[in-house]
């Protein structure tokens, strides 16, 4: 699985819970007790099959729909809002991101007619999830629509052929008559459940603010220009802070949501043996916890079961109180050969034991150890030896780390694109020496966080020379040694294309975030402002994070620049308006013509 997709933490779309479907008999035939599972199958095979087809027909159609019918959704949506006026306002939750390859599902031509692609069954998936709505009607809204309406013609924008919607009953009958179910084919089931997983799993992560909080009211005024906006942002940021402080609350919501969305995976566990196996395999690929209690329960359950987990993603989020011993004990029950993403976010006491990396370290792409008190140089040296393919390394606020650790990482890892060494304290431990090594070995860095490090202009120049094309986000907050000798000069370097007269940026063409808070040595702002405007002209809005003093300096410089520009414009216009040779004709001849006639 490609971890870069960022599995959908933003997409809160959930499919309907099963009991909302037209055919809601599933639970009657599926005892919660797994051991009786097979027995119940024998007792009522036909009903089971019926339940399955009703259910999974929907799961089956939906990805295909999503992949192929993006451009007709708006029309269909409008039509749907006619069909289901009561729920029309909630259609905005229709997912649009996911498309699976179409070949994944092939029907027997006789079992499902091709036109069912547009049938009303597939419309089910775009119905809103009403689980949290207190006004939810007790039965599904679809039932309320008279059948006659549902046979309406729908025009497919892709080919303008009118198509008859099949009434639901008909489709189900056709599904029942098909001889082999695609749900008996493990590969397909795997794909289906993987899709359910991608759609539903939420990896606990910190929400990223769009921009940093203003340092003071004046600062907010400077950034946002007017009082109302400044007020709004100061207020909003404090609100945001509140939610940070009461993170316990928000995390409860999160985990509640998590549990809720995991519900659909858990439901997959209950379908049959094949589903159980496949679902379990998929579920155990991702191990995520943001609650200490749940985590310790999990560790206990590990000791009782004999299942060996093979996680690809392992995320512990803000487990402040979990002990190292309980963390280390899990290594006996897990196989870390496939681990790609290890995140121990704000768990200050947890240090991943060497067993995590010994055998499968080559697969590890993403290592996030933000805010750890125990991560040190020895640990990083171990990482650099075991995980040469790291792409993302985030050791923000790991203040025991020094040049030694980062040098060894820079020496061994050559695929890094995101590194963050930002810190508030002990910045003197990280200097040019280690970062130069790291930059010279990693030419594709796109995000670099060096806030609070003891770096000089040399490192910035190294970045400009080595990673100029890839660099997008650069944080140099609180790097007081940075001076006019780096950023202003680097950004001012341009080439003028002699034929087209276009000006091309030599370095940092793709830079979109630049943070320079508290770097008081920077006094030359003109080139930075000009760079910002050039980027804007090319469609990149540069986010420049500055502290109040620097912001003030920049604004003043900007004002001066605008003044000179305006003066230049005025001079040009004045020349033009007072040029007598403007293309208008004299009017004398008209008058003489007139006089002659008179």
């Amino acid at each position, binding site marked *: 699985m490609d971890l870069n997709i960022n599995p959908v933490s933003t997409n809160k779309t959930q499919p309907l819970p099963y009991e909302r479907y037209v055919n809601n008999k599933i639970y009657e035939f599926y005892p919660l007790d797994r051991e009786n599972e097979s027995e119940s199958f024998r007792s009522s095979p036909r009903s089971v099959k019926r339940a399955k087809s009703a259910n999974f027909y929907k799961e089956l159609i939906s990805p295909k729909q999503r992949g192929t019918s993006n451009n007709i959704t708006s029309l269909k949506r409008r039509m749907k809002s006619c069909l289901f006026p009561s729920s029309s306002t909630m259609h905005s939750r229709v997912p649009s991101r996911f498309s699976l390859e179409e070949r994944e599902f092939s029907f027997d031509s006789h079992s499902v007619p091709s036109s069912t692609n547009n049938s009303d069954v597939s419309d089910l998936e775009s119905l809103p999830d009403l689980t949290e709505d207190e006004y939810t009607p007790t039965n599904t809204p679809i039932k309320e629509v008279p059948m006659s309406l549902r046979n309406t013609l729908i025009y497919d924008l892709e080919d303008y052929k009118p198509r008859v919607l099949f009434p639901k009953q008909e489709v189900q009958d056709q599904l029942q008559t098909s001889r082999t179910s695609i749900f008996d084919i493990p590969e397909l089931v795997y794909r289906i459940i993987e899709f359910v997983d991608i759609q539903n799993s939420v990896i606990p992560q910190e929400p990223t603010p769009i921009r940093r909080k203003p340092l003071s009211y004046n600062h907010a005024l400077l950034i946002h220009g007017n009082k109302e906006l400044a007020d709004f942002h100061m207020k909003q940021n404090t609100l945001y802070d509140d939610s940070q402080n009461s993170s316990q609350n928000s995390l409860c919501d999160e985990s509640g949501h998590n549990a809720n969305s995991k519900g659909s995976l858990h439901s997959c566990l209950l379908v049959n043996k094949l589903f159980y196996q496949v679902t379990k395999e998929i579920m155990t690929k991702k191990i995520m916890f943001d609650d200490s209690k749940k985590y310790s329960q999990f560790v206990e359950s590990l000791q009782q079961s004999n299942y060996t987990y093979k996680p690809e993603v392992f995320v512990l989020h803000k487990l402040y109180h979990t002990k190292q011993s309980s963390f280390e004990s899990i290594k006996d029950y897990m196989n870390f050969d496939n681990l790609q993403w290890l995140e121990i976010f704000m768990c200050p006491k947890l240090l991943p034991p060497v067993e995590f990396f010994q055998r499968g370290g080559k697969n590890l792409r993403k290592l996030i150890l933000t805010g750890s008190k125990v991560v040190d140089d020895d640990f990083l040296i171990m990482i650099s030896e075991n995980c040469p393919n790291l792409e993302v390394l985030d050791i923000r606020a790991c203040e025991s780390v020094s040049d030694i650790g980062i040098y060894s990482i820079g020496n061994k890892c050559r695929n890094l694109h995101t590194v963050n060494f930002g810190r508030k304290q002990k910045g003197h431990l990280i200097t040019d020496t280690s970062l130069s090594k790291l930059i010279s070995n990693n030419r594709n860095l796109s995000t670099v966080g060096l806030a609070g490090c003891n770096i000089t202009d040399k490192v910035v120049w190294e970045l400009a020379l080595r990673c100029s094309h890839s660099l997008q986000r650069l944080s140099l907050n609180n790097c007081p040694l940075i001076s006019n000798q780096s950023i202003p000069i680097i950004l001012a370097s341009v080439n003028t294309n002699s034929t087209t007269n276009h000006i091309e940026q030599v370095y940092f063409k793709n830079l979109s975030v630049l943070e320079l808070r508290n770097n008081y040595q920077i006094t030359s702002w003109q080139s930075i402002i000009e760079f910002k405007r050039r980027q804007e002209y090319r469609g990149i809005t540069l986010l420049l994070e500055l502290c109040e003093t620097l912001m003030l300096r920049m604004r003043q410089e900007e004002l001066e620049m*605008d003044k000179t520009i305006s003066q230049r414009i005025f001079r*040009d*216009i*004045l020349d033009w308006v007072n040029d007598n040779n403007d*293309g*208008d004709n004299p009017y004398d001849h008209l*008058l003489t013509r007139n006089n002659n006639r008179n």
Partner: protein
Amino acid sequence: MEDHQNDQNNQVALKIGLIGDSQIGKTSLMVKYVEGSFDEDYIQTLGVNFMDKKIQIRNTTITFSIWDLGGQKEFINMLPLVSNDAVAILFMFDLTRKSTLNSIKEWYRQVRGFNKTAIPFLVGTKYDQFIDLSHQDQVEITQQAKKFGQAMKSPVVFCSTSHSINVQKIFKIILSKAFDLRLNLEEIVNIGEPILIYK
């Protein structure tokens, strides 16, 4: 209006609205100014026409975005489209038809409802036909136009699109007014001549 700097090339953009009764030559004036051509045939404007005229002066590019509203009553609901954000509004009338001058009062009232800051201009068209009118008519129309111009606090310009009289000057006056620049252009005030009052 916006100022924008890109690599030594400064951009200035101004939106200008053309308003007035039908068949007085709003579209003709726009086409003449932007493309330099004039067509005798009348083509009714359905709704709104829009054209851009770019003028390069050394390192400054001036872009006039000219919006022209069809004169028929049914297009009045598109008036905001033309008048909103406009730097100048040209209230245009036909020098040979007094009724079109009288309509200006209503047009002005309507436009002011949407845009209170635009610089108003009173522009009389078809000056080449105007000079064929009797002296009495010329006096009457010219005096009426001057009166309107004073009431609206606007420049008054008589122009001929077909003979290229005072067409460029209108836009020069717009620029000088918009940026409050001094214009060394002689005013024309005598009856019978193509009036040019802007100071």
